């Protein structure tokens, strides 16, 4: 740990691993050399010991035979000289002959304790090996012919020359030196090659940390190594930079993604606003336009791109509308305003309803303005009001006549039968007129509600036209108009709604009589073929202007012709007639010449073909 700390302190990152490897290798080499040196010395000693032991044993064996002979001959002095010579020449550390407890001969004369051999015939003392035993010496028992027992002790010291060990030491030292040198060379070149990888290892270790003392290095830039460490280092640094870029991009994308969710939501809201057919304008507290959808741009007759930042009041031309929104901008009295008017000069025919309200009540809050095109509603309201006024008038007129004639009959109970009959006839006409008017109004309400339906059945046209002629006969007579029905000899039976067809034909004939001056002529001509029936209702009345030829079929439309100022009508008859005929799959067309007369042509299929519902 201490070494590691020292390495960390002394060596830069990238060198530590390599230096550690070098030190380890050097230690291994040194240990190997030391072991080799020790093993060499140990082997030499063991070999010397064995060789010396063998020499001593051979020498002792030879010497024992000579001593036995010499002692048997009583030549003690010769034995002692032999011992001294052999000990000297053989470099023996112990070479002695013992007899009993004493030393009979020894390489060291001072150690001799027995000066002479026992006299011939006397028993030899018993050997006492305890007193003369030498643990390292080779002991050979001597049997002296004609005597007793003695013992020879021989020991040779081994001198450790150390020559082998010295040579081994020299060799090991040389090997170690070479190994270290080689290691140094390898380290030098390997360091150049491997320090990149080593530096990368160090950086990886730093990035990992040890979980306790060394924290993880989170700054990727701090993990970069010196580019001079080689291509690996450059590749590592490139990887780190790419990782840094990737993380940066990820963060950026995450941020963009978070912003994108909001942006997508805003886009959806804006798309929804653009899909509105009402105009929507959002203004700030100073009534500057912040947002306007497509419909608002159309209604304000402005390019959408230029609306942002414009003053709302400058976009409004109607003084009433301007005043209302000025009040909203001042926030003095109201937080909501609803006003109707026009938006552009020269566009007075278009009515807009502008509903503005503050987005919040506090100061500085903007406002939202919803712009609705209510022109058609206002036109319909106006027409409906006109119809109600006209219908009231239409209802009141026959009712007044009925009341007057009824009162007359009540007041004159003795009136002449002719007078009574005339009064009842007028009452009857007025009641039928009321009936038609109420029928028209009901049909109008059905058309408005989209519930005008046909109840089809067989319609016998001959009967139908007979009734029609009877219905209008008196009216034509009263106005001195010639009413002619030109019918083929045989009329077919068609499939349709009888009441509705009678309503349509009644309106056509009734209009012809109404708008034809006295002494005029009205003709009803019927043609039938295999597929359809055509009815021409022609008059020689005042005619219809070309520009009104289609308008007369509009609901509530009343001709602007001054000659008709005294003629009352609901403006529903032709609209109802066309609607009914179209429901049957037929059509009503008009050809007219002003002041010459008009011809309405109604075609009906043999079987009512209901058109598709709207």
């Amino acid at each position, binding site marked *: 740990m201490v070494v590691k700390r020292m390495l960390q302190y002394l060596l830069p990152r990238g060198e530590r691993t390599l230096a550690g490897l070098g030190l380890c290798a050097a230690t291994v080499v040194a240990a190997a050399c030391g072991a080799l040196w020790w093993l060499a010395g140990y082997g030499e000693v063991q070999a010397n010991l064995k060789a010396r032991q063998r020499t001593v044993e051979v020498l002792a064996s030879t010497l024992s035979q000579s001593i036995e002979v010499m002692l048997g001959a009583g030549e003690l002095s010769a034995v002692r000289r032999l011992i001294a010579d052999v000990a000297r020449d053989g470099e023996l550390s112990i070479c002695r002959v013992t007899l009993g407890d004493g030393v009979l001969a020894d390489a060291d004369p001072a150690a001799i304790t027995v000066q002479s051999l026992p006299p011939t015939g006397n028993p030899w003392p018993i050997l006492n090996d305890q007193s003369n035993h030498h643990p390292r010496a080779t002991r050979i028992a001597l049997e002296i012919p004609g005597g007793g027992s003695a013992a020879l002790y021989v020991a040779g010291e081994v001198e450790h020359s150390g020559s082998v060990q010295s040579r081994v030491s020299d060799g090991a030292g040389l090997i170690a030196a070479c190994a270290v040198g080689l290691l140094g060379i390898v380290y030098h070149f390997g360091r150049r090659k491997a320090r990149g990888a080593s530096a990368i290892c160090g950086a990886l270790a730093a990035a990992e940390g040890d979980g306790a003392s060394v924290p993880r290095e989170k700054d990727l830039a701090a993990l970069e190594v010196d580019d001079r460490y080689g291509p690996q280092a450059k590749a590592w640094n490139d990887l780190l930079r790419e990782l840094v870029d990737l993380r940066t991009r990820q963060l950026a994308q995450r941020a963009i993604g978070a912003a994108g969710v909001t942006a997508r939501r805003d886009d959806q809201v804006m798309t929804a606003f*653009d*899909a*509105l*057919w*009402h*105009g929507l304008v959002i203004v700030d507290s100073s009534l500057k336009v912040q947002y306007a*959808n*497509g*419909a608002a*741009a*159309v*209604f304000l007759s402005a390019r959408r791109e230029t609306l942002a930042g414009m003053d709302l009041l400058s976009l409004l031309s109607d003084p009433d509308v301007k005043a209302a929104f000025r009040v909203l901008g001042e926030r003095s009295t109201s937080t909501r305003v609803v006003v109707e008017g026009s938006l552009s000069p020269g*566009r007075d*025919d*278009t009515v807009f309803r502008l509903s503005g309200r503050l987005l919040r009540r506090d100061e500085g809050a903007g406002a939202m303005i919803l712009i609705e*095109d209510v*022109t*058609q*509603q*206002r*036109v*319909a309201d106006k*027409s409906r009001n006109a119809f109600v006024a006209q219908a009231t008038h239409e209802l009141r007129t026959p009712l007044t006549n009925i009341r007057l004639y009824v009162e007359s009959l009540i007041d004159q109970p003795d009136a002449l039968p002719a007078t009574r009959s005339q009064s009842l006839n007028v009452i009857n006409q007025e009641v039928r007129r009321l009936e038609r008017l109420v029928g028209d109004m009901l049909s109008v309400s059905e*058309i*408005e509600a*989209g519930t005008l339906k046909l109840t089809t059945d067989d319609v016998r046209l001959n009967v139908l036209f007979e009734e029609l002629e009877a219905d209008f006969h008196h009216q034509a007579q009263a106005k001195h108009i010639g009413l002619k029905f030109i019918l083929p000899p045989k009329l077919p039976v068609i499939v349709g709604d009888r009441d509705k067809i009678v309503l349509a034909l009644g309106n056509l004939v009734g209009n012809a009589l109404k708008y034809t001056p006295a002494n005029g002529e009205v003709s009803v001509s019927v043609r039938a073929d295999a597929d359809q029936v055509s009815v021409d209702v022609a008059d020689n009345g005042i005619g219809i202007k070309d520009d009104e030829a*289609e*308008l007369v079929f*509009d*609901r509530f439309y009343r001709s602007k012709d001054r000659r008709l100022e005294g003629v009352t009508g609901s403006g529903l008859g032709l609209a109802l007639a066309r*609607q009914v005929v*179209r429901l049957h799959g037929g059509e009503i067309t008009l050809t007219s010449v002003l002041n010459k007369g008009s011809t309405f042509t109604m075609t009906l299929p043999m079987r009512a073909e209901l*058109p*598709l*519902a*709207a």
Partner: protein
Amino acid sequence: MQIKEQRHGAVTVISPQGPVCTTDAEQFQASALDVLGKTMGRLAVDLSATPYVDSMGLEALVAVTEILAQSGRVLKLCGACETIREILELTGLSDHFDHYADVNSAVRSFL
């Protein structure tokens, strides 16, 4: 080609009298765009007198409805015959328009 123009209250109905093809399509488109400008988009097209439309006619109809789409609306067609309805269905353009059986229904839809 004659193009009839009728006012139904605040709504203008234009009715091409014949097939909307080639140069007639340009005339129809110009007429429809003119009405759009005048009426703030309160326009319906009555096709009851139009037996068929060709690709130019379809382009003209789509051009008009795209103008209307900028203000959140679509072109209202009424009285289209079976042939025209089939053409619109086959070309996938049917959804680009509102369809009504007759002029009154189309005009009433502006209420």
